[in-house]
């Protein structure tokens, strides 16, 4: 049986209590993107400034549970200054960590460590974000963890479409 400490790792609680890149950016030049979790009412409002194919700056507003807010905070720290392609690679890596595959759960419900060492050169290291891996054992909370990432994905797509 997964315990609370699998879900609420210290680094997650730290990002929840002291969220990074919290606030807003002027629109324009930044774009404003909203993500909602209809299940629980969590919302992430992402202010994203991209220039020359690079995430120059971003801020997170909105409110929600510790998992959604800490994931957003960690995401903001991880993608700030990265190129759009690098940010997209991080989104893919994070969402792959968050996808549930029965095969990845052993008898004790322990997910295998996904650290990008599977030979793929495309997968960037997730660093602190790996603390969120325990969320996979609480399937209802996966949407909390991926909310900000889906919002970033939506924002990058909008930027690339020139809107």
């Amino acid at each position: 049986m997964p315990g609370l400490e699998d879900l609420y790792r210290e680094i997650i609680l730290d990002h929840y209590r002291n969220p990074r890149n919290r606030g807003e950016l002027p629109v324009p030049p930044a774009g404003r993107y909203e993500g909602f979790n209809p299940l629980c009412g969590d919302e992430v409002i992402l202010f994203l400034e991209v220039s020359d194919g690079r995430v120059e700056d971003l801020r997170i507003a909105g409110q929600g549970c510790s998992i959604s807010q800490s994931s957003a905070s960690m995401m903001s720290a991880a993608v700030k200054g990265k190129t759009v392609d690098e940010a997209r690679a991080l989104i893919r890596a994070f969402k792959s960590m968050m996808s549930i595959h029965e095969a990845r759960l052993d008898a004790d419900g322990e997910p295998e460590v996904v650290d990008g060492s599977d030979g793929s050169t495309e997968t960037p290291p997730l660093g602190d974000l790996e603390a969120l891996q325990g969320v996979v054992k609480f399937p209802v909370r996966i949407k909390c963890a991926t909310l900000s990432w889906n919002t970033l994905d939506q924002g990058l797509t909008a930027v690339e479409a020139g809107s």
Partner: protein
Amino acid sequence: MTSLDVTAIKADFPILGRDVNGRRLVYLDSASSSQKPRAVLDAMTRYYETTHANVHRGVYAIAEEATRLFEEGRARMARFLNARQPREIVFTKNVTEAINLVAGSWGRANLGPGDAVLLTEMEHHANLVPWLMLAQERGVELRYLPVTDDGLLDLSDLDRLVDGVKLVGVTCMSNVLGTINPVREIADAAHAAGALCLADAAQLVPHVATDVQALGVDFLGFTGHKMLGPTGIGGLWARAELLEEMPPFLGGGEMISDVRLDGFSTNEVPWKFEAGTPPIAEAIGLGVAVEYLEKLGMEVVRAHEIELTTYALETLRERHDDLVIYGPDDSAGRGGVLSMQLGDIHAHDLSQVLDQSGVCVRAGHHCAKPLMRRFGVSATARASLYIYNDRSDVDELSEALAEARKFFA
């Protein structure tokens, strides 16, 4: 009036015997869906094992028995609500479908541009979205009765708001605040203004003796799974003469009397509104759930919930300084629904920690986002009480709240 023997009642519910996370299951989410007594489960299994056949079709023995049992479920529900006749009960999936039926049938036949519907800020999405859809489709104006800071409907402007509307839709009991609304007063105001009144009784019927004639409404939606019955069955009660006038809702088998390639004519009420094979085992289960509640006595059920709600409000507030419980303070004017905010712990995190103690509460917006916005919260953790809960369950909740505070400190 005797009180409930909760120990004996708990023993009637097989699920309450199981553990969760190594702890006794403390089920405090009956406003979302109630648990089922063995009598309901047995009746449904027995039906499938001995009687199942489609209803209103075959002439053979088990088909006739199935039809009789199915219609008995309807008759019991009619009696439970003090309907004038069983045909005033139309079976639907749930209250959501019942209200969609009213909006889709009565609404489409009677509402157009320039017409208005009065709802309240307290409604569940089930009594908002069908009307929002109709508003979008044909320009119907929607008005809303506001909610006071105490969680009551603000009726000070009722006369002005109701003027010129064709329908008033109101929840009998808020699924977030527990507030029991003065439905009779609102129905009278609606009728005085020449409007009809629709009551969402999803939270009322399981907990408070409900008399559709005394409430004075024209439509009332109820659902089985919150009142000890199975999921997949609920219904619409409406005055027979309204049902007679209304066009059909869903089309298909059962709801017709004749079909030609160039048209059809409809079946009699209530079958006119029951297209397709209905939830037969579920109707039978619902009838047994009604019997179970009748045996306890709805007055006794209500008294138990007032007593337990009073105990919960007092003990939880006394022990937890940082606990906010939304809704009216007076237990006599509210149901056993406790929407909580503990310090700055998000409802989702709170319910996750409570689950470790086997305590089941609902976290989120409870399908009432406009009401949540009214109170400036995005989510609450909601504990809701029923006949199988007692003080020991409230005490477990209180203990688990203390543990949650410690965890997030």
